[in-house]
């Protein structure tokens, strides 16, 4: 298998639209010679879908591949020195930094307790979504106004997954379970069939099949192959799944960050799982990869930043700072694999431009930065 993929939305961090060239491992190439006809037919079907995605992406998101400038966005949930839990907080919300600038400016409304920011573009329509304390917010005017799409039933929204083709389909992960809207956020239905617990930290759509979803539910990593209608535990080998990551360059690989058991990784779509060596027994809240797929980064509670060059099988700590208790979010600049960002709990954003050797505080002091992403606008 040797094809080109376009990853539109992924793991709480809609991709920057880079066209990644995939290369399967040697073993997988050998397997391809043993394909049966139905299997080949299915592959052809998938190929058509992929071609569709490719063209869809090419037409609607071409600017991504060309324009990696854009802004870096940070979703801030609290601010240590200023937040007031009963509301009225101008220091929470989503903040944006222009390329080449140091200042973070309000992008969303303030007083909006933000877990994450997501972006989708379909044709000329650009939409930003914020997973927040008041629910799911959407802006269709570049962040000027935000509409709350959810009602009281869904409570807080922790993560969002946007269907790359049918724009009216939205999935949200909440403390009260997974919800799905098929009408652009007007109505929501709980989708938890098969799940043993309801707390769900993150939901992502498979890079190859938009009907396949992965959800970081509290007792296990779950997979749905039918758009969230039914879920099965993937038996990742540890409870307390905090985050799930699928490398764009190797979509058969999944990595799960856990509360107490470090990183769990599978190289074969969940058939076998192993513990990432080096960071076992630590809480991992975020996993992110460089655009070239060569390095994967992970961080969490009292971990510093760790890097893996073998798809999460083994890890090396590349940075630690005693003043930082936890890192909630990591981000690698798609235009420069040596440009890293780390969002902390109460120390704002840290940034490294040399692949993680040297880090400096990069603003939003006091902020709890739940997510960092870059979008072109």
């Amino acid at each position: 298998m040797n094809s080109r993929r376009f990853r539109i939305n992924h793991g709480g961090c809609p991709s920057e639209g880079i066209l990644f060239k995939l290369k399967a491992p040697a073993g997988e190439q050998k397997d391809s010679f043993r394909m049966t006809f139905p299997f080949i037919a299915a592959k052809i079907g998938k190929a058509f879908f992929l071609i569709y995605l490719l063209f869809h992406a090419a037409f609607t998101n071409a600017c991504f591949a060309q324009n990696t400038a854009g802004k870096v966005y940070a979703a801030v949930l609290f601010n240590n020195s200023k937040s007031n839990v009963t509301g009225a907080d101008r220091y929470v919300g989503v903040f944006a930094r222009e390329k080449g600038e140091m200042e973070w400016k309000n992008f969303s409304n303030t007083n909006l307790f933000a877990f994450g920011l997501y972006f989708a573009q379909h044709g000329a329509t650009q939409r930003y979504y914020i997973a927040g304390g008041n629910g799911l917010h959407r802006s269709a005017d570049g962040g000027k106004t935000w509409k709350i799409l959810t009602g009281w039933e869904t409570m807080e929204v922790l993560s969002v997954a946007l269907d790359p083709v049918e724009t009216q389909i939205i999935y949200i992960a909440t403390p009260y379970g997974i919800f799905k809207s098929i009408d652009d956020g007007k109505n929501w239905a709980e989708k938890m069939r098969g799940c043993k617990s309801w707390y769900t930290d993150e939901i992502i759509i498979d890079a190859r099949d938009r009907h396949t979803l992965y959800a970081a539910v509290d007792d296990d990593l779950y997979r749905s192959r039918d758009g969230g209608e039914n879920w099965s535990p993937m038996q990742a080998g540890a409870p307390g799944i905090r985050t799930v990551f699928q490398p764009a360059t190797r979509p058969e690989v999944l990595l799960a960050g856990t509360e107490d058991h470090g990183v769990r990784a599978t190289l074969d779509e969940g058939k076998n799982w192993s513990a990432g060596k080096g960071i076992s027994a630590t809480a991992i809240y975020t996993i992110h990869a460089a655009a070239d797929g060569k390095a994967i980064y992970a961080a969490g509670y009292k971990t510093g930043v760790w890097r893996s060059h073998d798809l999460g099988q083994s890890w090396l700590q590349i940075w630690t700072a005693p003043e930082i208790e936890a890192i909630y979010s990591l981000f690698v600049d798609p235009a420069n694999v040596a440009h890293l960002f780390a969002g902390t709990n109460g120390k704002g954003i840290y940034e490294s431009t040399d692949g993680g050797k040297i880090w400096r505080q990069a603003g939003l002091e006091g902020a709890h930065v739940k997510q960092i992403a870059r979008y072109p606008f």
Partner: protein
Amino acid sequence: MQMPVVLPNIVKQKIKIIKVKIIEALLMILTVIILTCTFCQSFSAAQSQSSFTERKSRLRNAAAQEARKDFFTVIAKLQTQTNVPQALSMLDSLARDEGIGGMFYAYGLIGTYLRARSLLPDSLHVKIRRAFRTRVMYRGDTENHWVMYYTGLYLAAQTWPNEDGAQWFNAKSSQENFAEAKSWLDYWIKLTTTKGQGEFDSPTYFITFVTPMLTLYEFARDPVMKKKAQMMLDYLFADFAVEHLHGNYGGGHSRDYPQDIINPITAMTTKWAWLYFGEPDFEPWSEIKGKSRHPSWETVAGAVSSYRLPEIIRQIATDRSAPYVHTETKRVRNVIRFGEQRNPPVYKYTYMTNDYVLGSLHGGILQPIQQHTWDVTFVSDKPNNTLFTLHPYYSGKELAMFFPEEQKVLSDEVNRFHLVYTNPNKWNASSPYEQTFQHKNALMVLYNINENAQQAHIDGFFPKSLDERVEDASKWIFCKAGKTYIAFYPLQPHEWIEEEVNWRWRSRDLKNGVVVEIGTETTHGSFAEFKNRLRQAKVAHDNFDETLTVQYTTQAGELMQFTYDGQRRLNGKPVDFKSYKLFNGPFLQSEVGSGVLKMTYKNHTRILDFNKVSIKGEE
């Protein structure tokens, strides 16, 4: 054999006449009694109403003098026409200040606007409307937050109907906001009246339910919502009344702050008790009784409301002529992790007398952070009128049961807001290692603390304001507070630590517990007699470290047996919490799931039927 005496007819007639006269006299006396009672009762109700009017006025006047800027002092100033320019300036500042917001702001701002709009200049109308358009009203993450937020949203959407999303902070139209707020308020009312309140019986957070309901009652245009608000007010006040003792909110609480837990007579609810029940007999804002916290004036919402507390609730709150047992079922706050039920039940037991109230929750983690599992609160002129124990537990896991943030950082997060969460000396805590068994005036509290748990000790609060505190050779610790006597039996060794207002009783054994029995002058005579009788009482706890079992026969001769994580037995019969009703006592009755609350006081009844949105009974 004796012959029967035969009376002459004239004598028989006279006897008959005398009989008739006696019956007539009796009937007349009965009539006089009934008329007197009726007169007294109406007089009492009228007198109570008149006192309420006077108290309202005193409260409003006191709040109107406050320099502190909040919505309720503004309302008081405007209503009493006290320094109106200052009030308008305060409101202007509140409307403009983007440093404030959220759920308190949402209902406070619209409530003030609706109460005072005829007095406001055009500029304030504009600013207040703009606040709901441009400022995100954070909904929060607790039951009280949502009651305030959705009450505010309901009334704001009602006030500015038919406006599109561009006119609202959340870009939903007036219609959408109104529908969402109504839907949640209906949901909350149903949940509360069928499964129980989550943030139940809180001397602090009571105000955050009552004040929005008063505002909703006052201004909801939909007669059904108005009626529901009225019924919820009756419901909340009845819930308070049955555990109220001379201004104190007795028994276990879902949530409270340490300052109020150790000084119940200064809690926020004391002001509400003063306004609506007429107790305590001092103005709670004038006599601070050792309290250092700022006064809050939410009670003004009651003083300017047209809501009238039904007399039956006031009677329930103040008639302590006979002791009674009252039990309740409440619910745990929404569990999001580490639990199989979203809202497991909470079982609550309260024993009320004229001198003290002893109350307890059944134990375990029922509400994070601020739980108060048990206490005895006694009537006293002095502050710190309570005694209790706790295990000052904290953990990220406890918090992660209820909050969506990361488990390992949650303790520090909560500490930022509640300041004492990880403090080993804190006076509020829920612990998974604490269980209780109460029967009337006797209580057993057992602890089985995991060796890896934070804070490997239990603490007891013994106020210095006690008249006496005696460690007896019998191992009992005897305390006297006014007419109340407390016998406290520790199962394990302990030490005393002197603090500003109290002695801290501390015991460091992980397998631990206390047995408590309360008496009074009325039930036990003198304090010396009480001590003598208790010295004879045996607390059986042989091999406690292995069995975690304790047995005690109360002064009334009732055998209590309690095994941690095992059965509670009273006179040999197991106690079944599952049989607990939503409310069960001489004054309040409600079945779990029913949505119906029946209040009874003597021959008066009042029935709140939330299914039919109807009130049956007097007033």
